[in-house]
C-alpha cells in the first residue's frame, strides 16, 4: 500500500467525521438535509477510493448507491415531504449546541482510543477507517438523542448507517452480500420511515416526537 493511497483514504474518511459534526449544529431542516447530502457524498468518495485502493470493483456499486440514492434521492424526497406536510423547519434541540459539540468531541476521542488500541495488528488502512467509522456511528447516535424532531432523528439514523457502510468497506474483502444488503436495508428502512412520517402526520398534525410522548401505555 503506497502512502498516497493511505493519505487519501484517511482524508476522505476524516471528512466524513467532519461533516458529522456539521450535522450536529444545524438548526434548520433544509440545511440539515443539505449537510446530509454532503455526508453521503463524502461516503461515496471514500467508498469509491477504497474500491480503487483495494482493487475491489464490487465496492464501486456500493459507492454508486451512496452517490445516487443517499446523496440525491433521499434528501430530495425528504425535502419534498417537508414541504408537503408543512413541517416546522426549525429543529428543536434537547441540548444546546455547545454541550453537544463537546460531547461529540468526547465520542470521537473515545472511538480513537478504543479502536486504535484494540487493532494494533490490523492493516493500518482498515484500522483508521474503523476508528473513523465508529466516530461517525457514535455521532449519529448522539444526534438522534439530542433532537426531538422526527425528520432529524431519521437523518441521524441515516448518518449512522453511513458510518456502518464505511466500516464494512474498510474491512478488506468483506463479501458483497453484506454491502448490497446494507444498502438494501437502508432502502427498506427509508420506506418504513416514510410511511411512518405520513401516518404520524395523518394522526397528530406534527412530526415533533415529543408530541407523541404523551402516551406511556399506562392510562389510569
Amino acid at each position, binding site marked *: 500500500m503506497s502512502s498516497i493511497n493511505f493519505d487519501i483514504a484517511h482524508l476522505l474518511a476524516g471528512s466524513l467525521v467532519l461533516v458529522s459534526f456539521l450535522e450536529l449544529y444545524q438548526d434548520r431542516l433544509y440545511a440539515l438535509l443539505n449537510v446530509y447530502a454532503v455526508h453521503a457524498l463524502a461516503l461515496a468518495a471514500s467508498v469509491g477510493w477504497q474500491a480503487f485502493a483495494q482493487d475491489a470493483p464490487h465496492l464501486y456499486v456500493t459507492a454508486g448507491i451512496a452517490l445516487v440514492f443517499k446523496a440525491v434521492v433521499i434528501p430530495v424526497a425528504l425535502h419534498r415531504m417537508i414541504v408537503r406536510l408543512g413541517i416546522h423547519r426549525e429543529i428543536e434541540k434537547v441540548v444546546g449546541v455547545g454541550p453537544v459539540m463537546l460531547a461529540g468531541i468526547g465520542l470521537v476521542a473515545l472511538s480513537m482510543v478504543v479502536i486504535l488500541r484494540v487493532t494494533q*495488528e490490523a492493516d493500518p488502512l482498515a484500522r483508521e477507517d*474503523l476508528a473513523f467509522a465508529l466516530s461517525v456511528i457514535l455521532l449519529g447516535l448522539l444526534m438522534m438523542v439530542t433532537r426531538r424532531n422526527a425528520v432529524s432523528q431519521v437523518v441521524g439514523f441515516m448518518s449512522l448507517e453511513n458510518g456502518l457502510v464505511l*466500516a464494512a468497506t474498510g474491512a478488506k474483502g*468483506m*463479501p458483497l*452480500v453484506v454491502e448490497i444488503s446494507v444498502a438494501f436495508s437502508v432502502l427498506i428502512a427509508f420506506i418504513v420511515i416514510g410511511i411512518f412520517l405520513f*401516518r404520524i402526520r395523518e394522526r*397528530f398534525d406534527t412530526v415533533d416526537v415529543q408530541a407523541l410522548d404523551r402516551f406511556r401505555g*399506562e392510562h389510569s
Partner: protein
Amino acid sequence: MNWVMSGVASATSFNALSGLLLIPAGAAVLLALLPGYRSTARLNVAAAALTLLCAFSLFFRRPEPGVYLLVDDLNGTFVVLTTFVGFTTSVFSLSYIGHELETGRLTPPFVRFYHAMYQVLMFAMNLALIANNIGLMWVAIELATLTTVMMVGIYRTHEALEAAWKYFILGSIGIALALFGTILIYMAARPVVSEGLDAMAWTMLVSRAGGFDAALLDLAFVFLLLGYGTKVGLAPLHAWLPDAHAEGPTPISAVLSGLLLNVALYALLRFKMVLAANSAALAPGPLMVTLGLLSLVFAAFMLYRRRDIKRMFAYSSIEHMGIITFAFGMGGPLANFAGLLHMTMHSLTKSAIFFAVGHVAQVKGTQRIADMGGLTETHPVLGWGLILGVVAIAGLPPLGIFMSEFLVVSSTFARAPLLALVLVFGILVGFAALLLRLNSIAFGAPRGPNGRTNASYVPMFAHLALVLLAGIYLPPALVAWFENVAKLLG
C-alpha cells in the same frame, strides 16, 4: 446403487432445508396477491404446517453445512420450536383476525397485508436460524425487525404508531450496533481464515477462533451484546418491548415473545461460542449473567404497577429472557441444559398465555386489567386456560417452568450461592405479582363488558398440555438431545 440412495437422500434433505425458506417466501407472495379473508387465513395455516413438517424432517435427514446454510443440534432445536409455535399461532390467528374483521378494527386490505407479513416474518426467522453466515443472519434479523415494526403499527391508533416508532428507532439502533460487531468479527477472522465468505461462516468461526485477535473479539462482543441484546429485550435496552407487545395484534405479541426474542438470543449464543473457543478473549459469561439478573429483578418489580394485561405479560417476557440469559451466561452442561429447557417452556407457555389474553381482550373489548374480573364465571374455558397459563409462567409445580427454574436455581446454588439468592429473590417477586393480578382477573364478581368470540382453544391447550407433560415426564430422547446441545454450548 449406493450413490443413488445417497443422492436421493441429499436431495430430500436439501429440499427440507430450502423448504424452510421457500414455503414461507412463496406463501407470502401468494397471500399478498390473493383476496378474500377465509381462504387466505387457511392458506396461512397450511403454509405454517408445511414449514413445520420440513423442520421435523430435519430430525431424520440432516444436510451437510453449506456455504450459506447450516443445521446442527443447536439451531435444529430453535428451528423446530420456531416453526411449531409459528404453526399454532397461525391457527390462533385464524379466529383472532376473524373477530378483528367483524368488529372492524382491521379492514380486508390490512388483513391481506398482515398475512403476507406473517409469512415474511417466518421466512426471516428461519433464515436467521439456519444461516451459516453472520452477515446473512444479520440481514434476516433486520428483516424480521422491519416486518414486526409494520405489524405493530397495523391498528394505526395513536398508541400503536408510537409503539411502532419507538420499536423501529430502538430496534434499528440495536441492529446497527450488531452490524458493527459483525464487521469487527469479520476483521478478526480475516487474517486467520481467509478473505471472503469463509471468514463469516459459523463453521469456520467456531473451529478457528483460537487464532483470532482477542482484543478485537472482545470489542466485537460488546457491540453484539448491546445490539442483539436490545432485540432480546435485556433490561437497560428493553424500552421498546412492552409497547410493541401491547399495541400490536395479539398473534404478533405471541410470536414476538415466543420466538423473535429467542432468535436474537440464538445469535448471542453463537457468538458466545466463538468467544469461548478463544482462550485469550474475555469470558462472555459474566456480562450475560449481569444483564440477565438485572432484567429479571427489574422486570419482576415492574410487574406490580401494570394496568394493561398485555404489557404485564410483556414484562414477564423480559423477566424470563433474563433468567434464560442468566442460565446461558453461567454456562456448563447443567446450566445450559436448564437454559434450553426454560427457553422452550417459556416460548410455549407465553404464547399460550397470549392466545388466552387475545381472546380475553376481545370479549372484554379492552386490555385494561381494571375492567376484567370474574373470568372463570363468565368465560370458564378461557378463564381456566389463562389461570393454567399464569400458574405455569409463575413457576408452580408440576408444570414445566417449575422444572427448568428449579434446575437453573439449583445449578447456580452449587457454583455461586450469592447470585442464586438474587435469582430466587427476583423469581419470587415476579411470582407474587403475577398471582396477585391473576386473582383479580380470574376470580371475584364479573366486571366489565361481556362480548362473545368464537375462540379456538386448541392451540392454547396444546401448548399447556406440552408444558404440563414436560413438568411431569421429559422423554429420554429429548433429554439426550438437550444434553448434546448443552455440551455444544460449552
